[in-house]
Protein backbone atom coordinates (compact mmCIF):
# COMPACT_ATOMS: atom_id res chain seq x y z
CA UNK A 1 0.00 0.00 0.00
CA UNK A 2 2.92 2.36 0.68
CA UNK A 3 3.72 2.18 -3.00
CA UNK A 4 0.29 3.59 -3.89
CA UNK A 5 0.23 6.20 -1.12
CA UNK A 6 3.63 7.55 -2.26
CA UNK A 7 2.25 8.05 -5.76
CA UNK A 8 -0.94 9.76 -4.50
CA UNK A 9 1.23 12.18 -2.50
CA UNK A 10 2.82 13.28 -5.76
CA UNK A 11 -0.53 13.96 -7.48
CA UNK A 12 0.48 17.57 -8.25
CA UNK A 13 3.47 16.37 -10.27
CA UNK A 14 1.64 13.70 -12.26
CA UNK A 15 -1.36 15.96 -12.88
CA UNK A 16 0.95 18.74 -14.12
CA UNK A 17 2.73 16.33 -16.46
CA UNK A 18 -0.59 14.99 -17.81
CA UNK A 19 -1.88 18.49 -18.53
CA UNK A 20 1.42 19.70 -20.01
CA UNK A 21 1.72 16.61 -22.23
CA UNK A 22 -1.86 16.86 -23.51
CA UNK A 23 -1.52 20.58 -24.27
CA UNK A 24 1.80 19.95 -26.05
CA UNK A 25 0.32 17.11 -28.10
CA UNK A 26 -2.73 19.21 -29.04
CA UNK A 27 -0.47 22.01 -30.35
CA UNK A 28 1.07 19.33 -32.57
CA UNK A 29 3.94 19.57 -35.02
CA UNK A 30 4.61 23.04 -36.46
CA UNK A 31 7.22 24.12 -38.96
CA UNK A 32 8.98 27.26 -40.08
CA UNK A 33 10.24 27.29 -43.66
CA UNK A 34 13.73 28.67 -44.31
CA UNK A 35 14.39 28.77 -48.04
CA UNK A 36 14.89 25.13 -49.04
CA UNK A 37 15.01 23.97 -45.44
CA UNK A 38 12.53 23.90 -42.61
CA UNK A 39 12.76 23.84 -38.84
CA UNK A 40 10.29 21.57 -37.11
CA UNK A 41 8.85 22.27 -33.70
CA UNK A 42 7.76 19.08 -31.95
CA UNK A 43 5.38 18.46 -29.03
CA UNK A 44 8.28 17.24 -26.89
CA UNK A 45 9.89 20.70 -27.17
CA UNK A 46 6.73 22.43 -25.96
CA UNK A 47 6.39 19.89 -23.15
CA UNK A 48 9.89 20.70 -21.91
CA UNK A 49 9.37 24.45 -22.28
CA UNK A 50 6.03 24.45 -20.42
CA UNK A 51 7.61 22.22 -17.75
CA UNK A 52 10.45 24.71 -17.28
CA UNK A 53 7.99 27.61 -17.08
CA UNK A 54 6.02 25.79 -14.35
CA UNK A 55 9.23 24.98 -12.46
CA UNK A 56 9.56 26.97 -9.20
CA UNK A 57 13.35 27.20 -9.67
CA UNK A 58 12.81 29.09 -12.91
CA UNK A 59 9.53 30.92 -12.22
CA UNK A 60 9.17 31.73 -8.53
CA UNK A 61 5.39 32.08 -8.84
CA UNK A 62 5.06 28.45 -9.94
CA UNK A 63 5.84 27.44 -6.34
CA UNK A 64 2.15 27.78 -5.45
CA UNK A 65 1.52 24.48 -7.28
CA UNK A 66 4.86 22.77 -7.94
CA UNK A 67 7.06 22.69 -4.83
CA UNK A 68 10.65 21.54 -4.31
CA UNK A 69 9.30 18.14 -3.34
CA UNK A 70 7.73 17.69 -6.79
CA UNK A 71 10.92 18.93 -8.48
CA UNK A 72 13.01 16.35 -6.61
CA UNK A 73 10.53 13.57 -7.41
CA UNK A 74 10.47 14.49 -11.11
CA UNK A 75 14.15 13.76 -11.65
CA UNK A 76 14.14 9.93 -11.33
CA UNK A 77 10.87 9.82 -13.30
CA UNK A 78 12.61 11.14 -16.43
CA UNK A 79 14.28 7.75 -16.94
CA UNK A 80 11.07 5.83 -16.22
CA UNK A 81 9.08 8.04 -18.60
CA UNK A 82 11.47 7.38 -21.48
CA UNK A 83 11.10 3.58 -21.09
CA UNK A 84 7.92 3.06 -23.18
CA UNK A 85 9.58 5.14 -25.89
CA UNK A 86 12.72 2.97 -25.76
CA UNK A 87 10.53 -0.16 -25.89
CA UNK A 88 8.75 1.15 -29.00
CA UNK A 89 12.14 1.87 -30.55
CA UNK A 90 13.19 -1.72 -29.87
CA UNK A 91 10.10 -3.02 -31.67
CA UNK A 92 11.03 -0.89 -34.69
CA UNK A 93 14.63 -2.16 -34.68
CA UNK A 94 13.56 -5.84 -34.63
CA UNK A 95 11.81 -6.02 -38.03
CA UNK A 96 14.64 -4.02 -39.64
CA UNK A 97 17.40 -6.32 -38.39
CA UNK A 98 18.43 -7.34 -41.93
CA UNK A 99 18.77 -3.70 -43.03
CA UNK A 100 20.84 -3.05 -39.94
CA UNK A 101 23.20 -5.92 -40.73
CA UNK A 102 23.57 -4.49 -44.25
CA UNK A 103 24.34 -1.09 -42.76
CA UNK A 104 26.54 -2.69 -40.08
CA UNK A 105 29.92 -1.20 -41.07
CA UNK A 106 28.47 2.33 -41.24
CA UNK A 107 26.61 1.82 -38.00
CA UNK A 108 29.73 0.68 -36.14
CA UNK A 109 32.15 3.19 -37.63
CA UNK A 110 29.90 6.21 -37.07
CA UNK A 111 30.39 5.67 -33.34
CA UNK A 112 33.87 7.11 -33.93
CA UNK A 113 32.07 10.22 -35.17
CA UNK A 114 31.25 11.01 -31.57
CA UNK A 115 34.83 12.31 -31.49
CA UNK A 116 33.44 15.11 -33.67
CA UNK A 117 32.92 17.01 -30.42
CA UNK A 118 36.71 17.29 -30.20
CA UNK A 119 37.24 18.00 -33.89
CA UNK A 120 34.72 20.84 -34.05
CA UNK A 121 34.45 22.31 -30.56
CA UNK A 122 38.00 21.99 -29.17
CA UNK A 123 39.69 24.33 -31.69
CA UNK A 124 36.95 26.90 -31.18
CA UNK A 125 37.28 26.67 -27.40
CA UNK A 126 41.06 26.94 -27.34
CA UNK A 127 41.93 29.25 -30.24
CA UNK A 128 38.79 31.29 -30.89
CA UNK A 129 37.36 31.77 -27.41
CA UNK A 130 40.77 31.47 -25.67
CA UNK A 131 39.33 29.24 -22.94
CA UNK A 132 41.46 27.41 -20.38
CA UNK A 133 41.23 23.90 -19.01
CA UNK A 134 37.42 24.12 -19.13
CA UNK A 135 37.90 23.22 -22.81
CA UNK A 136 38.92 19.69 -21.86
CA UNK A 137 35.80 18.83 -19.88
CA UNK A 138 33.58 20.74 -22.26
CA UNK A 139 34.63 19.18 -25.56
CA UNK A 140 35.74 15.56 -24.96
CA UNK A 141 32.17 14.23 -25.17
CA UNK A 142 28.49 15.17 -25.44
CA UNK A 143 28.55 15.61 -21.65
CA UNK A 144 25.81 13.21 -20.62
CA UNK A 145 25.76 11.43 -17.28
CA UNK A 146 28.45 8.77 -17.96
CA UNK A 147 30.84 11.47 -19.17
CA UNK A 148 30.27 13.57 -16.06
CA UNK A 149 31.23 10.51 -14.04
CA UNK A 150 34.51 10.24 -15.96
CA UNK A 151 35.43 13.89 -15.29
CA UNK A 152 34.29 13.72 -11.65
CA UNK A 153 36.48 10.67 -11.17
CA UNK A 154 39.59 12.14 -12.76
CA UNK A 155 39.52 15.85 -11.89
CA UNK A 156 36.62 16.39 -9.47
CA UNK A 157 33.64 18.50 -10.45
CA UNK A 158 35.00 21.66 -8.77
CA UNK A 159 37.98 21.76 -11.13
CA UNK A 160 37.98 23.79 -14.38
CA UNK A 161 37.45 20.53 -16.29
CA UNK A 162 34.41 19.88 -14.07
CA UNK A 163 33.05 23.36 -14.80
CA UNK A 164 33.44 22.61 -18.50
CA UNK A 165 31.57 19.31 -18.47
CA UNK A 166 28.79 20.62 -16.18
CA UNK A 167 28.30 23.73 -18.28
CA UNK A 168 27.83 21.71 -21.46
CA UNK A 169 25.65 19.21 -19.60
CA UNK A 170 23.29 21.91 -18.39
CA UNK A 171 23.13 23.70 -21.74
CA UNK A 172 22.53 20.32 -23.40
CA UNK A 173 19.77 19.50 -20.92
CA UNK A 174 18.07 22.85 -21.47
CA UNK A 175 18.55 23.28 -25.21
CA UNK A 176 19.70 19.88 -26.54
CA UNK A 177 16.30 18.78 -27.84
CA UNK A 178 15.85 22.11 -29.64
CA UNK A 179 19.37 22.05 -31.11
CA UNK A 180 18.95 18.48 -32.39
CA UNK A 181 15.53 19.19 -33.89
CA UNK A 182 16.94 22.20 -35.74
CA UNK A 183 20.06 20.37 -37.01
CA UNK A 184 18.18 17.25 -38.09
CA UNK A 185 15.35 19.04 -39.85
CA UNK A 186 17.69 21.38 -41.71
CA UNK A 187 20.09 18.64 -42.82
CA UNK A 188 17.15 16.44 -43.87
CA UNK A 189 15.82 19.12 -46.18
CA UNK A 190 19.25 20.14 -47.56
CA UNK A 191 19.75 16.69 -49.09
CA UNK A 192 23.55 16.65 -48.62
CA UNK A 193 23.94 13.51 -46.54
CA UNK A 194 22.22 10.12 -46.80
CA UNK A 195 19.08 10.11 -44.60
CA UNK A 196 20.23 6.76 -43.16
CA UNK A 197 23.47 8.46 -42.07
CA UNK A 198 21.52 11.34 -40.51
CA UNK A 199 19.41 8.77 -38.66
CA UNK A 200 22.41 6.86 -37.30
CA UNK A 201 23.92 10.12 -36.08
CA UNK A 202 20.81 10.71 -33.93
CA UNK A 203 21.92 7.99 -31.51
CA UNK A 204 24.10 10.07 -29.20
CA UNK A 205 23.29 8.23 -25.98
CA UNK A 206 20.59 10.59 -24.77
CA UNK A 207 16.97 9.45 -25.05
CA UNK A 208 15.43 12.90 -25.35
CA UNK A 209 17.96 14.20 -27.87
CA UNK A 210 17.45 11.06 -29.96
CA UNK A 211 13.67 11.50 -29.72
CA UNK A 212 13.88 15.05 -30.95
CA UNK A 213 16.37 14.21 -33.69
CA UNK A 214 14.50 11.19 -35.06
CA UNK A 215 11.17 12.96 -34.70
CA UNK A 216 12.37 15.87 -36.81
CA UNK A 217 13.95 13.55 -39.40
CA UNK A 218 10.96 11.27 -39.77
CA UNK A 219 8.57 14.22 -40.06
CA UNK A 220 10.78 15.68 -42.79
CA UNK A 221 11.09 12.31 -44.58
CA UNK A 222 7.85 10.47 -43.64
CA UNK A 223 8.26 7.74 -46.28
CA UNK A 224 11.49 6.61 -44.54
CA UNK A 225 10.18 6.86 -41.00
CA UNK A 226 10.61 3.18 -40.02
CA UNK A 227 14.17 2.98 -41.37
CA UNK A 228 15.08 6.22 -39.61
CA UNK A 229 13.75 5.02 -36.27
CA UNK A 230 15.48 1.64 -36.60
CA UNK A 231 18.88 3.15 -37.52
CA UNK A 232 18.72 5.78 -34.79
CA UNK A 233 17.62 3.28 -32.18
CA UNK A 234 20.36 0.80 -33.07
CA UNK A 235 22.97 3.55 -33.01
CA UNK A 236 21.75 4.84 -29.67
CA UNK A 237 21.95 1.34 -28.21
CA UNK A 238 25.54 1.09 -29.51
CA UNK A 239 26.37 4.42 -27.92
CA UNK A 240 25.01 3.24 -24.56
CA UNK A 241 27.45 0.34 -24.90
CA UNK A 242 30.51 2.15 -26.31
CA UNK A 243 30.16 5.81 -25.35
CA UNK A 244 31.74 5.64 -21.94
CA UNK A 245 34.73 3.62 -23.17
CA UNK A 246 35.28 5.90 -26.15
CA UNK A 247 35.26 8.87 -23.78
CA UNK A 248 37.48 7.32 -21.15
CA UNK A 249 40.09 5.56 -23.29
CA UNK A 250 40.15 7.59 -26.51
CA UNK A 251 38.57 11.03 -26.33
CA UNK A 252 39.82 12.20 -22.95
CA UNK A 253 43.48 11.15 -23.41
CA UNK A 254 43.38 12.67 -26.89
CA UNK A 255 41.99 16.00 -25.65
CA UNK A 256 44.52 16.07 -22.82
CA UNK A 257 47.33 15.57 -25.34
CA UNK A 258 45.91 18.24 -27.67
CA UNK A 259 45.63 20.67 -24.79
CA UNK A 260 49.21 20.04 -23.69
CA UNK A 261 50.34 20.90 -27.24
CA UNK A 262 48.07 23.95 -27.51
CA UNK A 263 48.94 25.36 -24.10
CA UNK A 264 52.35 24.00 -23.07
CA UNK A 265 52.61 26.59 -20.28
CA UNK A 266 49.31 25.60 -18.67
CA UNK A 267 49.51 21.84 -18.19
CA UNK A 268 46.55 19.57 -17.55
CA UNK A 269 45.85 19.23 -13.85
CA UNK A 270 46.50 15.81 -12.42
CA UNK A 271 45.40 16.43 -8.85
CA UNK A 272 43.22 13.99 -6.99
CA UNK A 273 39.44 14.46 -7.21
CA UNK A 274 38.05 17.09 -4.86
Amino acid at each position, binding site marked *: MHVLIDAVKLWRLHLA*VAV*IAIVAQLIGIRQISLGNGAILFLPLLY*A*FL*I*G*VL*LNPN*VMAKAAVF*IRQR*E*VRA*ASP*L*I*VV*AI*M*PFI*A*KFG*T*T*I*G*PAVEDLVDAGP*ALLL*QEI*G*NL*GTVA*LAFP*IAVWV*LRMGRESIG*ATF*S*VAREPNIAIIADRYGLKSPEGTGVM*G*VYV*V*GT*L*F*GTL*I*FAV*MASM*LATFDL*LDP*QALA*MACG*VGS*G*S*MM*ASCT*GALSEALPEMSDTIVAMA*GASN*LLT*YATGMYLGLFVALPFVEWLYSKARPANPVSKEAPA
Partner: protein
Amino acid sequence: MSADNAAEIGVRPAREKIALLPHFRDLVLISVIGWALQLIATDMSPIAALGGMAGLYAICAGGLVLARFAPFYLPSVAWISLLGIAATVPFVPWDQAVLGVVEEIDFLALSVPCLAYAGLAVSRDEVTIAKRTGWKLAVIAVFVLAGTYLGSAVIADLVLRITD
Protein backbone atom coordinates in the same frame (compact mmCIF):
# COMPACT_ATOMS: atom_id res chain seq x y z
CA MET B 1 11.75 7.42 -4.45
CA SER B 2 11.07 5.14 -1.52
CA ALA B 3 12.73 1.76 -1.29
CA ASP B 4 10.30 -1.09 -1.30
CA ASN B 5 10.66 -4.24 0.73
CA ALA B 6 9.33 -6.53 -1.96
CA ALA B 7 12.24 -5.52 -4.18
CA GLU B 8 14.82 -6.54 -1.58
CA ILE B 9 14.45 -10.25 -2.26
CA GLY B 10 17.49 -11.87 -3.87
CA VAL B 11 20.21 -9.56 -2.62
CA ARG B 12 23.05 -8.82 -5.02
CA PRO B 13 25.16 -6.24 -3.27
CA ALA B 14 27.49 -5.67 -6.23
CA ARG B 15 24.95 -3.78 -8.29
CA GLU B 16 22.59 -0.89 -7.86
CA LYS B 17 19.24 -2.29 -6.81
CA ILE B 18 16.21 -1.25 -8.77
CA ALA B 19 13.10 -0.94 -6.60
CA LEU B 20 10.76 -2.79 -8.94
CA LEU B 21 7.34 -2.03 -7.45
CA PRO B 22 7.68 1.77 -7.48
CA HIS B 23 8.96 1.55 -11.05
CA PHE B 24 6.00 -0.61 -12.09
CA ARG B 25 3.65 1.88 -10.43
CA ASP B 26 5.22 4.91 -12.12
CA LEU B 27 5.16 3.12 -15.45
CA VAL B 28 1.40 2.59 -15.04
CA LEU B 29 0.88 6.33 -14.44
CA ILE B 30 3.08 7.25 -17.39
CA SER B 31 1.36 4.69 -19.63
CA VAL B 32 -2.05 6.17 -18.79
CA ILE B 33 -0.82 9.62 -19.82
CA GLY B 34 0.78 8.03 -22.89
CA TRP B 35 -2.53 6.36 -23.77
CA ALA B 36 -4.32 9.73 -23.78
CA LEU B 37 -1.59 11.17 -26.03
CA GLN B 38 -1.97 8.27 -28.47
CA LEU B 39 -5.67 9.08 -28.83
CA ILE B 40 -4.67 12.61 -29.89
CA ALA B 41 -1.69 11.61 -32.06
CA THR B 42 -3.09 8.59 -33.92
CA ASP B 43 -6.35 7.22 -35.34
CA MET B 44 -6.24 4.24 -32.99
CA SER B 45 -9.38 3.27 -31.09
CA PRO B 46 -9.16 3.62 -27.28
CA ILE B 47 -9.01 -0.18 -26.96
CA ALA B 48 -6.27 -0.58 -29.58
CA ALA B 49 -4.22 2.21 -27.98
CA LEU B 50 -4.67 0.56 -24.59
CA GLY B 51 -3.42 -2.72 -26.04
CA GLY B 52 -0.42 -0.98 -27.56
CA MET B 53 0.52 0.75 -24.32
CA ALA B 54 0.04 -2.54 -22.43
CA GLY B 55 2.38 -4.29 -24.87
CA LEU B 56 5.06 -1.64 -24.35
CA TYR B 57 4.45 -1.81 -20.60
CA ALA B 58 5.17 -5.54 -20.65
CA ILE B 59 8.47 -4.96 -22.48
CA CYS B 60 9.49 -2.23 -20.00
CA ALA B 61 8.56 -4.37 -17.00
CA GLY B 62 10.52 -7.30 -18.43
CA GLY B 63 13.53 -5.06 -18.99
CA LEU B 64 13.41 -3.82 -15.41
CA VAL B 65 13.24 -7.36 -14.08
CA LEU B 66 16.25 -8.31 -16.20
CA ALA B 67 18.19 -5.22 -15.08
CA ARG B 68 17.47 -6.25 -11.50
CA PHE B 69 18.11 -10.00 -11.65
CA ALA B 70 20.17 -10.88 -14.73
CA PRO B 71 23.59 -12.38 -13.95
CA PHE B 72 25.44 -9.45 -15.58
CA TYR B 73 24.68 -5.75 -15.45
CA LEU B 74 23.21 -3.65 -18.25
CA PRO B 75 21.23 -0.43 -17.72
CA SER B 76 17.48 -0.97 -17.74
CA VAL B 77 17.02 1.06 -20.93
CA ALA B 78 19.47 -1.26 -22.71
CA TRP B 79 17.55 -4.35 -21.51
CA ILE B 80 14.26 -2.77 -22.63
CA SER B 81 15.75 -2.04 -26.03
CA LEU B 82 17.01 -5.61 -26.38
CA LEU B 83 13.66 -7.10 -25.30
CA GLY B 84 11.85 -4.89 -27.81
CA ILE B 85 14.18 -6.21 -30.51
CA ALA B 86 13.84 -9.83 -29.36
CA ALA B 87 10.06 -9.50 -29.45
CA THR B 88 9.99 -8.40 -33.09
CA VAL B 89 12.92 -9.88 -35.06
CA PRO B 90 11.54 -11.75 -38.12
CA PHE B 91 12.83 -15.20 -37.09
CA VAL B 92 10.82 -15.54 -33.89
CA PRO B 93 7.28 -17.03 -34.08
CA TRP B 94 5.69 -14.20 -32.10
CA ASP B 95 6.99 -11.19 -34.03
CA GLN B 96 3.78 -10.54 -36.00
CA ALA B 97 1.65 -10.88 -32.87
CA VAL B 98 3.75 -8.28 -31.02
CA LEU B 99 3.88 -5.94 -34.01
CA GLY B 100 0.10 -6.23 -34.41
CA VAL B 101 -0.26 -4.77 -30.93
CA VAL B 102 2.41 -2.03 -30.87
CA GLU B 103 2.96 -1.09 -34.52
CA GLU B 104 0.39 1.71 -34.68
CA ILE B 105 1.73 3.45 -31.55
CA ASP B 106 3.22 6.87 -32.36
CA PHE B 107 6.78 6.98 -31.01
CA LEU B 108 7.03 10.76 -30.93
CA ALA B 109 3.99 11.13 -28.66
CA LEU B 110 5.61 8.59 -26.30
CA SER B 111 8.51 10.98 -25.69
CA VAL B 112 6.29 13.89 -24.56
CA PRO B 113 5.68 12.97 -20.87
CA CYS B 114 9.42 12.39 -20.39
CA LEU B 115 10.24 15.93 -21.47
CA ALA B 116 7.48 17.34 -19.25
CA TYR B 117 9.06 15.59 -16.23
CA ALA B 118 12.48 16.84 -17.38
CA GLY B 119 11.26 20.44 -17.51
CA LEU B 120 9.76 20.17 -14.03
CA ALA B 121 12.94 18.49 -12.71
CA VAL B 122 15.30 21.40 -13.48
CA SER B 123 16.92 22.01 -10.11
CA ARG B 124 18.10 25.14 -8.36
CA ASP B 125 21.69 23.96 -8.86
CA GLU B 126 21.18 23.59 -12.59
CA VAL B 127 19.70 27.09 -12.84
CA THR B 128 22.71 28.39 -10.88
CA ILE B 129 25.16 26.59 -13.17
CA ALA B 130 23.34 27.85 -16.26
CA LYS B 131 23.58 31.45 -15.00
CA ARG B 132 27.23 31.06 -14.03
CA THR B 133 28.24 29.16 -17.17
CA GLY B 134 28.72 32.25 -19.27
CA TRP B 135 28.32 32.71 -22.96
CA LYS B 136 31.57 30.98 -23.95
CA LEU B 137 30.56 27.58 -22.59
CA ALA B 138 27.08 28.02 -24.04
CA VAL B 139 28.58 28.61 -27.49
CA ILE B 140 30.89 25.61 -27.02
CA ALA B 141 27.93 23.44 -26.02
CA VAL B 142 26.24 24.16 -29.35
CA PHE B 143 29.43 23.19 -31.22
CA VAL B 144 29.78 20.05 -29.09
CA LEU B 145 26.29 18.86 -30.03
CA ALA B 146 26.78 19.85 -33.66
CA GLY B 147 30.18 18.11 -33.62
CA THR B 148 28.90 14.73 -32.47
CA TYR B 149 26.00 14.89 -34.90
CA LEU B 150 28.00 15.97 -37.94
CA GLY B 151 30.92 13.68 -37.07
CA SER B 152 28.71 10.60 -36.94
CA ALA B 153 26.62 11.64 -39.97
CA VAL B 154 29.65 12.32 -42.19
CA ILE B 155 31.39 9.03 -41.28
CA ALA B 156 28.16 7.06 -41.75
CA ASP B 157 27.54 8.76 -45.09
CA LEU B 158 31.06 7.96 -46.34
CA VAL B 159 30.89 4.34 -45.23
CA LEU B 160 27.44 3.91 -46.80
CA ARG B 161 28.78 5.33 -50.09
CA ILE B 162 31.75 2.92 -50.04
CA THR B 163 29.79 -0.19 -49.03
CA ASP B 164 26.72 0.35 -51.23
